[in-house]
């Protein structure tokens, strides 16, 4: 986990591009002000984390203890019963699998399609190029939520309702990434490619061995965000999947947990299990995610 401050984003915010900050803050004496500051900051962080802790606390209580009023944070008899019951049903594992499969399809296809398109737009001239590019940029403006009805109709016609492809394919069209990647590729000087081209490399070789290696940071960012976005997407999978066995994790948790009724420990155990995969991803990739968001905003 990164304990240093995140690298300063290179910004367009002024003429000066800032040098990275020193990793550690200057040594300071603990003044009244900083004691207050650190107290407030710690409290805020704890309060913000509390709902997750409360979910966990509830999930390790025996069912009888979950509804004891007033509420207690520490269970008298901690137990993982709720987890064994929830996992025993098998649904959550099945939904996690479905999420993993559809998310990987979305992430890989998005990266491949967007990289190819961005490379094409960035490095080649062809008939209709400005018009096609404008068309794609225009697509950024269309809110996908407003297309759910015709998209569902399309899926019924293609026979893709209640399939992995039905969940994944409409999610891979991300015009904004074509735009972002093209801008990035545009900024890579041509000299690198010229050398490769002189060695006889074709356009695909150039993309693979020159452009992509130079674009790792942006590819990582796009990949991570596509992954998180697809994993957490609710609306589209909720529309296109009705069969409980084909549901992704967020949709399954939302539709079928009603069956647990008033067994709150089990409901919270399923919430904790549903939170785990991406929390782990977040801890592993924390720095990339943080800087990825940063890059997103600064560059708009």
């Amino acid at each position, binding site marked *: 986990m990164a304990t240093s401050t995140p690298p300063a984003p290179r910004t367009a915010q002024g003429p000066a591009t800032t040098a990275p900050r020193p990793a550690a803050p200057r040594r300071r004496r603990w003044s009244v002000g900083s004691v207050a500051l650190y107290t407030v900051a710690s409290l805020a962080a704890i309060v913000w984390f509390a709902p997750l802790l409360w979910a966990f606390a509830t999930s390790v209580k025996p069912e009888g203890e979950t509804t004891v009023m007033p509420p207690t944070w520490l269970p008298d008899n901690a137990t993982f019963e709720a987890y064994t019951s929830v996992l025993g049903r098998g649904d959550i594992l099945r939904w996690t699998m479905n999420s993993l499969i559809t998310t990987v399809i979305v992430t890989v296809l998005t990266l491949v399609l967007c990289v190819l398109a961005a490379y094409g737009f960035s490095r080649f001239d062809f008939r209709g190029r400005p018009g096609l590019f404008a068309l794609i940029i225009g697509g950024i403006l269309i809110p996908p939520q407003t297309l759910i009805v015709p998209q569902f109709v399309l899926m019924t016609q293609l026979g893709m309702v*209640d399939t992995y492809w039905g969940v994944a394919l409409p999610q891979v069209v991300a015009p904004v990434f074509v735009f972002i990647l093209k801008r990035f590729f545009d900024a890579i000087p041509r000299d690198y490619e010229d050398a490769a081209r002189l060695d006889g490399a074709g356009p695909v070789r150039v993309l693979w061995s020159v452009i992509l290696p130079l674009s790792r940071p942006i590819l990582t960012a796009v990949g991570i965000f596509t992954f998180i976005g697809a994993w957490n997407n609710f609306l589209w999978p909720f529309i296109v999947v009705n069969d409980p066995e084909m549901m992704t994790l967020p949709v399954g948790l939302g539709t079928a947990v009603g069956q647990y009724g008033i067994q709150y420990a089990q409901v919270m155990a399923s919430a904790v299990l549903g939170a785990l995969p991406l929390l782990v991803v977040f801890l592993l990739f924390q720095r990339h995610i943080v800087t*990825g968001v940063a*890059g997103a905003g600064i560059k708009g």
Partner: protein
Amino acid sequence: MRRASRAPHAPPPPLAPVGPGRRAFVTGALATAGLAAAGCAPPDTLISGETRLRQWNLFAGGDGLRMIEMHDAYQAEHPGIDFRATTFTWGAPFYTKVAMGAAGGRGADIATVHVSRLESLAPGRLLDPIDPGLLAEFGIDDTVVLPNIWEKCFFDGQLYAIPIDTHVLIQYINLDVCRQAGVLDADDRLVEVSGVDAYFDLLREIQGVTGDYGLSMDTWNPWSNFWALYRQQDGELVLGEDDFEMDDDKALAAMDVMYRLAEEGLAPRHSRDADTAANIANGHAGLMIHGNWEIPTLEATGIEFSATQFPAVFGNHRTRGDSHCYVFPHQRDRDPERTRAAAEYAAWMLHNSLTWAGGGHIPAYQPVVESAEYDALHPQSEYREAAENVQFEPEAWFSGSAGRLQEEAAGALTTLHQGTQTPEQALDQLKGTIRNLLSVPSPV
């Protein structure tokens, strides 16, 4: 929301170079993709040797527990069938998923719906017809099911549903209270009364004991009560293309009963959900009009109670009712073997519907209703004739259980209990609601 804003097409835009990427993310992703692609066939293509059977239903209450009991028994007897049942949230969410699944052609093999919602599920398009011959092979035909319900299962001359039960409004009796009020006979049966005045007198005697109400009834979803009272007078509701006919005098008479019950303090002005059963259970009322599915609820309270048919307020015991039935949602590629398994499952559930009757519903399968075992079920056997007195709603895409008419008519009818509108005003509003629904083009 932010998340929604970028899905499914536009994740947030991380622009420009960001932190150093030391992880070979792309390579990793591609490797994972290879693995995933290998194993990403949808499950129904997996060859297991078992017949796959998927059942969707909406039973989440006391009847749901009965159903799980029956499903366990079914599975024990059918090891060759890969059976799975899913319970969805009752009402609109369930019907939405059934319709969308059928539109997509890969939904459930068999689903449980209300027979009154058959038309709204577009038989022939969202529902596949059922071959009566196939059902007959498993012992289900019009000789073992009540004709008035069997007829409801047809649409355009084709069979689309297999009736499971009839559920009706019945009258519950708190035996303690009614005994004190002296309205029970020697067998603990409620004395037979007929007509509005006689019924109100009965309630007044009971009220004398409870000090609160005579009758407990649901004021939040009053359409069913209204429909029973209206139909007891032979009131008709004829729905045309964009107009309808209704008998104002009879509707007003029914509404007047509802209005006066609350006005004279014989029934509560507000009663919703669990309140209704609570009122009779804790002795605030001696009688209750409610669905037969409340039997497990009252059993759980431990009070001494019985039940009988809907009171003969207008001289007969007609009552509002509906039926649960099995339907075959449309499938793109209907597999004959699974269809056969679905029919066999439905028949099995009907043959074993004595368990189902325990939840209060009146089985559609007559051999069970006529059996000695059913006779022994109390209070179920007390109201078995109710299935013949059941009054269905007129067929329309908006009628039926959890349909739009039922939901929207509550707005007008609730005001009668609350005393905020006279029957004349409520009737005006109700007719406006029906007119509105007729003006909306039918989606089916």
